[in-house]
């Protein structure tokens, strides 16, 4: 494996200056025991990381956008004084509280998973990636967590202005968090400014700015943050559409649907453009990832086709049942019909990513992106015809598209991360040489525990969120609940609480009788 690593270096010598200095780090410093003999543990560790990070990613993808949406709603409420915005703020705040809690607890798992399952990776990359992650904790996590309590529970204690400030700080915190963790992730795709120390660790050589703003980072940051905003917009739009289908005069549902559709119409085209830029950047720095995305096993000296469908066959190195449009891929990637495009036949087998997951995940992501664009355009047309709240088929489509952002985000994540294989740090450190020296049973046991507990706990949380979404937003919406016996502040505004003091309209019914009575 290590000898291969040396020989494969020649294949990319023309592109990467650091190939000259490349040495099989792990071979020199006694890490070989984690390879081969522990292939099962390695595979299990990879499954575990993929599972926990995919689950985790769902929550920030939602809470980054939702935190900003809450800040906008509260800002509009303070500016216009309209109770409608306050109601919408409180409606989504309850959902945010649950989603954020799940993001926090699944995120802590990630911050330790590097050490538990990828200790060699941690030791080798720690001097470079450690500080970036430490900055994430210092500048983002504390900010979010410190102001979250005030945002959720402090409205009556600090006054409107300070409360709005707290909401903004939480929103800013989610963005700063995305900034740092995507910088870390991007460096793993496009590592720059490093040298190898005596201990085998990668040491920071260039300036920190150069490391933080590594070549793929600006593109990945823009593409991912917009993805989070779009994901939230479609959730909000889906919920709005759901309630419009039940009652198209509901002013709260109208407002959230309208805001979400503006986001879809404006941001979806920007996202497609940003994605294209990100793809071109990947083409420059990680060509084999783009080859896998495109299904290009063979080189095409006179214009490469854009494959719409096919079944990648890594064994035979060909795309079975391929359906393609001639020369379109060259046009998209090189802006020229006859431009030559290299294929995976120029990449040694040991350096190729598995094509199948990358190929399909990429198509799912792009397909959803264009479907989002379609919804946005449809809503613009409906708005132009003054029928935005009157076309049930638009609402049905928006409802179906509600969770689509999550699918797209996970698909995009699979595209980029599997496309980086077989490396953890692209071209520098192999995945097979990154794992902890653990026995397979230990990893298997923890993987089973994660799977069972995540599905149970986060399944319940998702169910509670959907329950909250199923209640239609209304006048005098209440915030986060904290007592069964507390004073009923909204008595007189809505009739419910006066008949049944202390009952939470958003909670699940206690028993069948209550459910049937419909209290």
């Amino acid at each position: 494996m290590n000898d291969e690593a040396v020989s494969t270096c020649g294949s990319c010598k023309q592109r990467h200056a650091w190939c000259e200095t490349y040495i099989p780090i792990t071979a020199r410093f006694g890490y070989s025991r984690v390879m081969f003999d522990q292939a099962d543990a390695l595979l299990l560790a990879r499954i575990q990381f993929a599972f926990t990070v995919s689950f985790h990613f769902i929550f920030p993808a939602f809470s980054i956008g939702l935190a900003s949406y809450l800040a906008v709603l509260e800002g509009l409420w303070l500016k216009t004084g309209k109770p409608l915005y306050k109601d919408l703020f409180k409606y989504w705040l309850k959902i945010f509280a649950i989603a954020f809690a799940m993001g926090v607890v699944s995120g802590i798992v990630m911050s330790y998973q590097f050490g538990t399952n990828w200790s060699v990776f941690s030791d080798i990359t720690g001097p470079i990636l450690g500080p970036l992650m430490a900055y994430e904790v210092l500048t983002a996590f504390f900010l979010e967590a410190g102001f979250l309590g005030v945002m959720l529970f402090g409205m009556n204690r600090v006054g409107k202005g300070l409360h709005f400030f707290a909401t903004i700080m939480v929103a800013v915190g989610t963005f700063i968090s995305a900034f740092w963790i995507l910088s870390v992730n991007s460096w793993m795709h496009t590592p720059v400014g490093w040298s190898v120390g005596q201990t085998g660790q990668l040491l920071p050589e260039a300036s920190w700015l150069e490391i933080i703003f590594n070549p793929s980072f600006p593109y990945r940051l823009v593409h991912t943050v917009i993805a989070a905003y779009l994901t939230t917009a479609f959730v909000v739009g889906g919920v709005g559409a759901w309630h419009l289908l039940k009652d198209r005069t509901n002013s709260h549902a109208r407002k959230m649907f309208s805001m979400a559709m503006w986001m879809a119409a404006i941001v979806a085209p920007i996202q497609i453009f940003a994605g294209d830029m990100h793809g071109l950047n990947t083409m420059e720095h990680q060509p084999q990832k783009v080859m896998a995305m495109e299904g290009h096993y063979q080189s095409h000296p006179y214009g490469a086709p854009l494959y719409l469908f096919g079944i990648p066959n890594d064994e035979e190195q060909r795309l079975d049942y391929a359906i393609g449009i001639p020369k379109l891929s060259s046009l998209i990637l090189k802006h020229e019909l006859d431009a030559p495009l290299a294929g995976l036949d120029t990449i040694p087998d040991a350096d190729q990513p598995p094509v199948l997951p990358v190929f399909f995940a990429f198509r799912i992501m792009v397909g959803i992106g264009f479907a989002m664009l379609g919804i946005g355009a449809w809503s613009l047309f409906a708005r132009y015809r003054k029928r935005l709240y009157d076309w049930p088929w638009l609402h049905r489509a928006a409802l179906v598209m509600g969770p689509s952002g999550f699918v797209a985000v996970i698909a995009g994540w699979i595209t980029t991360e599997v496309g980086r294989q077989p490396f953890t740090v692209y071209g520098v450190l192999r995945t097979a040489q990154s794992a902890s020296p653990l026995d397979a049973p230990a990893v298997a046991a923890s993987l089973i525990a994660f799977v069972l507990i995540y599905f149970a706990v986060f399944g319940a949380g998702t169910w509670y969120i959907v329950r909250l979404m199923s209640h239609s937003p209304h006048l005098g919406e209440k915030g986060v609940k904290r007592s069964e016996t507390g004073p009923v502040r909204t008595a007189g505004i809505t009739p419910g609480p006066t008949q049944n003091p202390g009952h939470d309209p958003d909670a699940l019914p206690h028993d069948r009788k209550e459910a049937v009575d419909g209290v």
Partner: protein
Amino acid sequence: MAYNLDLTTVWAFIIAFAVFAYVVMDGFDLGIGILFPTFAVGPERDRAMNSIAPVWDGNETWLVLGGGGLFAAFPLAYALILPATYPLIIAMLLGLVFRGVAFEFRWRDPAHRRLWDAAFTGGSFVAAMAQGMTLGALLQGVTVAGRAYAGSWFDWFTPYTLLTGLGTVAGYALLGATWLVWKLDGESQHHARQLGKRAAWATFVLMGGVSLYNITLNAEYAERWLSAPEIYYAAPVPILTGLVALALLRALSVARHSKPFWLSIALFFLGMAGLGVTMWPYIVPPGITIWDAAAPEKSQIFMLVGTAIIMPIILGYTAWAYWVFRGKTEYEGYH
């Protein structure tokens, strides 16, 4: 080993501070979780939980700083300790999952509130126990070959680590009970005071047991505590601990509000100091010192600049967030 003040030493103190901040701040959250089954269903449980609902997330962030800081400043220690205590860390993380979601879920699902309350307690207990046992596993020594953990995946399970785990559970329960003495009033406060007394005695006994066990653990530890001139530096720690323990018992007996909590924190601080005397300068006993495990100077400086600027700001708004929710916890409905 010289006590020269270099960057690595500074970072060792910063990490120690993060760990201490985590232990006392999430300590009282977890302690309330551990004591939760003894609270009456209804307002007593609701208020106990509400007293920490606005701050638990910030408190838990110190754990991320401890882990992230270790990864950044002492990557080798991070890469050795976590595989060595793998099942403990996984158990702790999963415990924190249950504990964290229970804060929201118990309100959303009254029909299953008992279940989420049990998850709150179970998660808190498992997390506390795992943290204590991890500390014990570290103190009893980690088998290292080259730059990798070389022991088996059950080395951490010994009578000693069971003792440190139980000691941590008792200590967190003490913090939780004294926090509630401060934040509650009436019958609930009286209840918390009774719990505090029991937790205090349990903490003293287990803390003493761990300290004595430490000395038998390895010859170097014994030398630290029992031979001159080291004993002159070390002796104030147990003496002060005894005085704080007496003051704490007294404060719990008379009608004090916040004093027992601060004395409990002082107790933890002295425990931490004792730990420092025992371990210094090793970060992964018996062989790896803080200098062996340290990140390169360039990484340390980059982080130190950020920490020096940002940490005071963090402490500022954290203090503000506590200040906003000062006083006795109310019987609140909605926010």
